[in-house]
């Protein structure tokens, strides 16, 4: 089978072909390594490529599958991790200069679970330094590029994780989300990003940005792959004191159930200030839902107006607590933008921090009230399409007079504050050929309904045209 064909398989398809020995993990892994070599000089999605370890793992997977010991849907599947997750003996930089030579002596639970499921690690993915930003313009490891336009940002902080998915230099990837860092790059690059419920996926071995708002989750080509991957990484972990004991269902079970009778709440506070392109695409998605038999009406979550402030205060404080010693000893080793954000943390009072934490409960209460009469909530993932690298030209399509970063964060940060599951899914391309996206938000621990609604929409909408890379 030609390498290009293998790269076109989603995880579900590839997995079946691996299980039935139509393709081998070794040849698939070689195809992905060749794809990384062909694309990454321009894309800068990877910080570290673990080629020899990948080949070794692929050989092991092949031997096991041939012997009849198939471990499940990720056995022999090549994946990559945001370089924020600890990998034993493999460099883990956090996208920073400070950890440029850091080799952990244990694995993040998420990687341990994927490895136990037979996944093959291709490497560690580039990100905004320490996950503290939305551009993935990394001053230490290179600016990650958007596959649909190399002059534009891929979004962040998990920019490498989304870019690699879209150019098929990994079959599935892992990202993390504290203000939107899974959903924003998924939106701007045109793929699926699932931020699960807080505590659903272990944070053990993940470099923290905010102890109370960090979420780890999949970035994939489609909804089914995200459901498969979450099924592997979710579940209680005694190594993470915030980890939930909630049972993990089969997330793929309801993917074909459609949305007939599903009640969708359209969040009023996130329906304004959109660029014309985003607005048109989002409204078309709502019409698509109606044609599939779902009902939609408006809901209000008034406290969302304060979401970026609440999210910011918590992150400023938590992030500085983690970085404070390095800020004293090695401030020049941070990129300027991240250093400024950490300095901002020095200004937040304890009173403001505790009130921000209390306000999160108010916001979640309002969201739950809306969900009492609706199955899911929806909103655009970003008010704008991918901005050009460098920041300034973002203003040319700025949807509001707010800080341009707010035109992105104000849509995603609320659901880090509330900890609800939220999935970003492409809704089409803009006139400039750039991806547009909406997010589907569910009740805590009800990822299954989010996946079900997303899968129905995805099936009706069809695939996005691939980027030319």
């Amino acid at each position, binding site marked *: 089978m030609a390498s290009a064909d293998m790269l076109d398989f989603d995880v579900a398809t590839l997995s079946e072909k691996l299980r039935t020995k139509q393709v081998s993990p070794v040849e698939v892994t070689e195809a992905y390594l060749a794809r990384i070599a062909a694309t990454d000089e321009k894309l800068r999605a990877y910080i570290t490529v673990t080629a020899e370890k990948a080949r070794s793992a692929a050989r092991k997977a092949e031997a096991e599958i041939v012997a009849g010991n198939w471990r499940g849907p990720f056995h022999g599947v090549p994946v990559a991790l945001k370089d924020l997750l600890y990998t034993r003996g493999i460099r883990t930089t956090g996208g920073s200069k400070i950890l440029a030579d850091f080799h952990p002596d244990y694995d993040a639970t998420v990687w341990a679970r994927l490895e136990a499921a037979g996944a093959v690690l291709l490497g560690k993915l580039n990100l905004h330094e320490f996950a503290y930003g939305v551009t993935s313009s990394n001053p230490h490891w290179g600016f990650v590029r958007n596959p649909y336009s190399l002059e534009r940002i891929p979004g962040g902080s998990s920019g490498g994780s989304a870019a690699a998915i879209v150019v098929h230099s990994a079959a599935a990837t892992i990202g993390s989300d504290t203000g939107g860092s899974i959903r924003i790059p998924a939106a701007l690059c045109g793929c699926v990003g699932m931020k699960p419920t807080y505590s659903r996926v272990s944070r053990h071995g993940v470099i923290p940005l905010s102890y109370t708002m960090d979420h780890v989750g999949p970035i994939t080509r489609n909804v089914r792959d995200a459901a498969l991957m979450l099924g592997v990484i979710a579940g209680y972990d005694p190594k993470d004191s915030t980890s939930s004991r909630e049972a993990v269902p089969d997330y793929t079970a309801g993917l074909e159930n459609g949305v007939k009778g599903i009640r969708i709440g359209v969040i009023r506070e996130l329906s304004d200030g959109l660029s014309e392109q985003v607005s048109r695409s989002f409204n078309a998605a709502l019409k698509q839902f109606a044609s599939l038999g779902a009902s939609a009406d408006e809901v209000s979550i008034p*406290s969302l107006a304060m979401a970026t*402030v609440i999210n910011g205060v918590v992150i400023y404080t938590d992030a500085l607590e983690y970085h404070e010693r390095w*800020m004293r000893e090695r401030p020049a080793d941070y990129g300027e933008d991240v250093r400024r954000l950490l*300095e901002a943390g020095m200004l937040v009072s304890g009173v403001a921090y505790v009130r921000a934490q*209390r306000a999160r409960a108010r916001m979640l209460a309002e969201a739950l009230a809306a969900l009492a009469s609706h199955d899911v909530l929806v909103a655009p993932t970003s008010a704008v399409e991918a901005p050009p690298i460098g920041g300034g030209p973002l203003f040319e399509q700025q949807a509001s007079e707010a800080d341009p970063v707010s035109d992105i964060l104000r849509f995603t940060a609320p659901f880090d504050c509330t900890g609800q599951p939220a999935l970003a899914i492409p809704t089409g391309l803009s006139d400039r050929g750039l991806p547009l996206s909406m997010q589907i938000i569910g009740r805590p621990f009800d990822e299954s309904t989010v996946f079900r609604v997303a899968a129905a929409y995805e099936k009706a909408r069809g695939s996005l045209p691939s980027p030319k890379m």
Partner: protein
Amino acid sequence: MAQMTAETIRRLARENFDYEIGPEVAEAMAGSIGALLAMTGQFLALGLDGIEPAFGYSNLVREAEALAGRAK
């Protein structure tokens, strides 16, 4: 919370963190971060009476148990 001045920003960083922020940076921060922090004064308007921060004791116990387990 009142809007911060550049001098206040420099003093807070110096006295609380032994960290020097340059005057030009502090001036810029007063306009951006300072404005955001000023908005924290509106948190109470969200109606926080009766709401406690979600720092659960169960998490504290689990963290301690994990630490104790590691110490064995």
